[in-house]
């Protein structure tokens, strides 16, 4: 497990360095992600340790968002004043996004299987 964590942290580090010095428009972890993906494609398989760490992260992804989200307490008065706009925008936007994504995927996938 540690070897997997070391590998992933290494890619995160390389990503941060590349982002800082070469591509300031893209956040470091994204570059790390792309580099790790290239590494996996080159290796042809996922090393056991990397797989273990990644599946643990995916399962407990939720908890990692908690500290940033508690920041809501700082903006509470500001958010309260505009609660209606925010609530409607967030709810409608997420429903529309799910609906559009699902419909596009479904329609194009069906078009394909009908043609085949």
């Amino acid at each position, binding site marked *: 497990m540690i070897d997997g*964590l070391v590998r*992933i942290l290494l*890619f*995160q580090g390389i990503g941060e360095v590349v982002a800082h010095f070469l591509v*300031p*428009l893209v*956040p*470091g*972890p*994204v570059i*790390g*992600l*792309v580099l*790790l*993906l290239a590494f*996996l*494609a080159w290796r042809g398989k*996922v090393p056991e340790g*990397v*797989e273990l760490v*990644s599946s643990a992260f*995916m399962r*407990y*992804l*939720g*908890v*990692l*968002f*908690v*500290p*940033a*989200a*508690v*920041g809501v*307490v700082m*903006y509470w008065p*500001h958010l309260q004043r*505009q609660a209606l*706009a*925010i609530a*409607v*925008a*967030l*709810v409608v*936007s*997420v*429903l*529309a*996004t*799910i*609906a*559009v*994504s*699902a*419909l*596009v*995927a*479904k329609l*194009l*996938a069906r078009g394909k299987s009908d043609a085949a």
Partner: protein
Amino acid sequence: MRPDLPNIHEIWVYLSGSPLLALILTLAAYQVGVMIYERTQLNPLANPVLIAVTLIALSITALDMPYATYFEGAQFVHFLLGTATVSLAVPIYQALPSLRGRVLPLVAALIGGGVTSIVSAVAIARFFGADESIVGAMVVKSITAPIGMGVAERIGASPTLTAVFAVTTGILGAALARFVLDALRCREWWQRGFAIGIASHGIGTSRAFSVNPEAGTYAGLAMGLHGVLGAVAIPWAVALLR
């Protein structure tokens, strides 16, 4: 005579100065959230993140602890967001072989969903008269928080507000996706997962993994791709429109 025991107040001052308290609070609140989520048979409305954030916000308000102090301890959890983003490469890589014949629907869904999420949120927020700090944070709310916060800084929006909106979006998406997808008769797990991943990133992906592994993998794929696309396209589009 008893030796001088420290009184409750001294213990409290010591504890609240240490990062341990915020760390325990964060993980314990999440654990409570997970217990409730499991007790309610994975009811999407009993989202563990929502429960944890509510509990912590109430606790630190009651304890009169400033958010900055809380974050000092909780940053160890927060830091791992970047690491988790990198490890998204694994579900993306694992989904690659099953992508045959699905590339076109997925890419189209990603672009359609990504554009919808930005345009609808910004238009509605503007329509209801939200100020520019809110509108700016709305632009990046659908991409996963670690990437979104980085992008927010680059386009001059508040990273904290972005994180708050991103997490709220994630919770809403995780809670409501089932109803939308059922209403649209979308039954394929890969399509359901992908739609959830585009709209509600990490929290939606967490939820998708707890319901079905294929949906989880595709949600992770969607969240990763949306993050990468957003990180590249959003600052560029914003620069173009200004």
